């Protein structure tokens, strides 16, 4: 990670478990599009990619989101520089 990363508008997005398999990737770097300032807005943006993105992140799918490794909600703000993870409900233990 670059020292000035928190001042860029790039985020690192991680996908786990069923999402990683369905979306075909475990992580990506994304320059935050204009107007994307919350977790909810980011999910909306990703859904517009269509296909698996629309269905896996769509309504009725239980998806959890963590920002910088803390559980987040659709309202959680993102500014760039964050590590954002999407994953299904956990099933460990």
């Amino acid at each position, binding site marked *: 990670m670059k020292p000035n990363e928190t001042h860029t508008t790039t985020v690192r997005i*991680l996908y*786990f*478990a*069923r999402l990683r398999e369905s979306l075909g990737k475990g992580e990506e770097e994304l320059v935050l599009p204009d107007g994307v300032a919350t977790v909810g807005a980011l999910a909306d943006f990703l859904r517009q990619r269509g296909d698996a993105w629309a269905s896996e992140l769509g309504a009725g799918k*239980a998806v959890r989101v*963590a920002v910088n*490794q803390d*559980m987040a909600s659709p309202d959680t703000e993102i500014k760039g520089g964050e590590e954002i*993870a999407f*994953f*299904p*409900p*956990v*099933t*460990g*233990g």
Partner: protein
Amino acid sequence: MPVRVQTEDFDVGAEIARLREGNPKVGAVASFVGIVRDLNDGDAVATLTLEHYPGMTEKSLEDIVAQAQQRWDIYDALVVHRVGTLQPLDQIVLVVVTSAHRGESFRACEFLMDYLKTRAPFWKKEVTPQGSRWVEARASDDTAADRWS
């Protein structure tokens, strides 16, 4: 370190002995071992693969242990959770808690398991005769965790 995520198996007896070693105030040790069963939701299970979120998983387990330390009068707690591909009869998870009296270690041990099941980022994928499938989260686990809030 009260928390470990590892591919290797663990030795329950050695872990318990190490956790209480040299602390003569410990009168009670409660522990739990989770094991891969050969049957889940009616289907034979050939293998179980556990995935986690390196960094966040350890952080969330440490947070859960810290909560247990705050809520009960316990001495030490240990959580060891395996990842990777396991088979029926393999050990998955170990939780050990030490305290002066038994009530506290029983409570904290069960709390740690309930919170771990619903809050720590681990995911299970099973291979069955019907192919492989991601294990679905259980409502009963949420209910169990809700008891503590």
